[in-house]
């Protein structure tokens, strides 16, 4: 269970959530809305990665949220965070067709760098700009379905669904962690030496 650190310091689980997606889709605004309860005016593009820890209101679970830069030149920095992520929030901007069209490319990145137990949720942000919508909800839902991802539409500005996004995700992660704890023997990808039932090749057959 590479993804769950048990009883480290004062929390049982510490989940890592990483936000990814094109530049300007509103990742930083989502994080700041959730962690600080505000919509930052004139939010500048993120440089590299930013991170914060927030206690989620479910049994005091803590989540570490990594907000990454969408700009191409930060890609290699961002990629180094995928592997240890428990959840990825793949964000696009519903008023920007382009940010939607880039999603397959992002999925390829996830495929390549993330661990395969990662929970991915697709988020369409900026629903307050309904009149400028370029990507229909149904289309996004179908796409998310086809990739078996969860889908949610949010507005960081109006605080729509932002809380729900993170809480749902935390719930899902807690559920999976508990599940994993129960049957950590039949991991879909057994990490060598991690389970208790690693059977070494028995070399004592000479006797």
């Amino acid at each position, binding site marked *: 269970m590479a993804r769950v650190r048990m009883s480290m310091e004062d929390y049982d689980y510490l989940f890592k959530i990483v936000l990814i997606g094109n530049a300007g889709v509103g990742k930083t605004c989502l994080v700041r809305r959730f962690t600080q309860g505000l919509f930052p005016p004139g939010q500048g*593009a993120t440089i*590299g990665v930013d991170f914060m820890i927030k206690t989620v209101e479910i049994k005091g679970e803590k989540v570490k949220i990594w907000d990454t830069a969408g700009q191409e030149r930060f890609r290699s920095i961002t990629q180094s965070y995928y592997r240890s992520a428990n959840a990825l929030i793949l964000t696009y901007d519903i008023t920007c067709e382009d940010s939607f069209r880039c999603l397959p490319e992002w999925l390829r990145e996830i495929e390549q760098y993330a661990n395969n137990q990662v929970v991915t949720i697709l988020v369409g942000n900026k629903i307050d700009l309904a009149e400028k919508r370029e990507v229909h909800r149904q289309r996004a839902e179908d796409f998310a379905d086809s990739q078996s991802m969860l889908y949610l539409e949010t507005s960081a500005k109006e605080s729509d669904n932002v809380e729900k996004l993170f809480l749902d995700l935390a719930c899902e992660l807690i559920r999976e962690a508990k599940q994993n704890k129960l049957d950590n023997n039949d991991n879909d990808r057994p990490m060598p030496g991690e389970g208790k039932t690693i059977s070494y090749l028995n070399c004592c057959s000479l006797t």
Partner: protein
Amino acid sequence: MADSSALAAKRYDSGSLSSVSMETISTLTELEDLEKVYQQLCVEEKEVEAQLDRLVGQEGAIHTKMLALQRMGPNLQLIGGDASQLSGMITFTCSLAENVSQKVRQLDLAKTRLYNVIQRADDILDLKFCTDGVQTALRNEDYEQAAAHIHRYLSLDQSVIELSRQGEESSAVDASLVLLQEAEQKLKVIVAEKLDEAVAAVDLAQVERFFKIFPLLGLHQQGLARFGQYLCSQLASKAEENLLLATGGDLGEKRALMIFADTLTLLLEGIARVIETHQPIVETYYGPGHLYILITHLQQECDRQAQKIVDKFILQRGYHNKFQIVQSSMMKSAPGERIEPRELDPVLAEVTLMNARAELYLRFLRRRIMADFEVGDAQSITQEHQQNVEKLLKHCALSTTMQELIGYYIPMEEYYMRESVNKAVAMDSYEKGQLTSIMVDDCFYIVKKCISRALSSSSIDCLCAMINHANSLLESDFREVLCNKLRQGFPATTLQDIQRGVSSAVSLMQSSLQQGKFNTMGIESTENAKAAFLVTLNNVEVCSENITTLKRNLENDCTKLFSQGFGSGEQAKIESCLSDLISTSTKFKDLLQEGLTELNTTAIKPQVKPWISSFLSISHNIEEEEFNDYEANDPWVQQLIVNLEQLMAEFKVALSPVIYDTLTSLMTSLISIEMEKTVLKCSFSRLGGLQFDKELRSLVAYLTTVTTWTIRDKFARLTQMATILNLERVTEILDYWGPNSGPLTWRLTPAEVRQVLALRNDFRSEDIKRLRL
């Protein structure tokens, strides 16, 4: 009774003084009632008389008071008169005061007006003076003086000037104004021309001279822009010269490796020096807060020149090309064009140095700009200022170019790390007598080197990314290597071979040969496989230690970095990435534990178990003679100790002390469990119990010498069993049980105690059953 209450009601209705009214009395007919009323009236009479007496007694005192009051009458009249007089006086004073203060107010007003008049007169005089002065100064080409006059004129209150034009002197003032405005325009043109000339002539003294005049004419922005232009052209020519030297000239081999970093350093240091040199003049003549504007001009040139250097760097070093090779060879395992990690060393070092220089320079700019804002007024550093500075520093082309370089650097460094570690793993070897193989040292040397290089870039994000990569390399790939080695398992022990006799080993080989396939697992390769397993265990432990050390050292290194001023957010980022290393270290510890358990089950358990169960073949149902015989010729425990010693000797030399100790601990646990099982299968006489007690003591004494863990606890149950087997009578147990147990904590349940008691063939089962435990 009903009547009396009716009486009472009547009494209140009548309202008379007496409690009984006349009408009531006249209606009374019964004597008894009359008497009752009479009596009542008599009582009332007495009361009234007493009251009257009291009132009469008070007469004297009241009289005296009346007299005193009469005497006060005239005095009161006097007071009345005085009071109305006072009131009149106050009214008068009040109106007087109001009169006076009104006059004072008028005076005040007059005074301010007078001041204004004087001011205006002064201004008009100044205006005249300026008009004359400017002309003279211009004639004399004394531009400083002329500018000073214009400055004086510009600082005059414009409304005053307007007013003056409406006065009697209006025509004269108008004329002056026109002259002044003309002079102002003229001066502006001249100064601009002169500055351009000076710039063209590269005459720093003249440039500075006219640069100082601009703010006097209210042309701060223009002055800074022109001066910035001048400085930029200076920087540009110097930078071009340096770049030419870098790419053309014949350089020493050592310098050549870092030439682009050096060239960039020269550029940035040059700009820093320019800023340092000219900061005082800007601050003095333009006032605080203007350095930022000059720096924005300089930064444009910096961006241009840095870009040129970086472009050349990319071209000459084949930076993008190298990146592409690296990327494609990381994407697919198929052998395409590959690059030797060693070949990347210089370029990785150079690019991190370049970034470090840029970071240093940008920190310098931030410090200078903020200090300059603060000189003005610490409070005046508005959010807008902050944002402007952030924008300048974070989004300038220098920053973005460097971010791009670092963006390519990270995958290349990751490749370097992975490839080098793979090599180290492939070339692994160990020398006899060494606990670990060279692969571990090599691997950590490489990881440290890569992270240190990332750290030397001064980019926190870059450092974090490399920590992440290193962590994932160690946690997955490198651990996998060790894990696979452990999976090979620990082969059967030599001791077993010896026991079976070498001949059987030979026959085994012969049979293999006859079957046409030679078992490569000969005695020698068995030895190798064993050593490989044990070395791997040591490796795993050292890895766990090394990761912890790596984390600690990085923390120290970062503290140094943070003392140079990074935000707390940056620090938290690093801490978070570093904390992941701890869980990786724990995973190695877990792996070690599993390996040891495996070793215990495959190499120790199969040996120890028969040695212990041989206890069964030694009768403990003995009498004096046999007991003495055992005394002379130890039947079991000494051989067991010798066997254990032999078994563990191999591990003692091959494992690190810590691992060996843990293994011994596993072994002792195993022995205690097996012993317990075995003993429960035996039967004991009184002396047999004593014999067992002796044997157990020897065993515990021996095991205590071989491990630092406490043995006594593990053998507590067995020791208690020995105590029970040593009892004289069944009931003697009660001397040690329950309230009599003293400091002894029983590890055996009552049922187990009975079970052990039953092992003694001389104890009767009825006695045991009867025991109350």
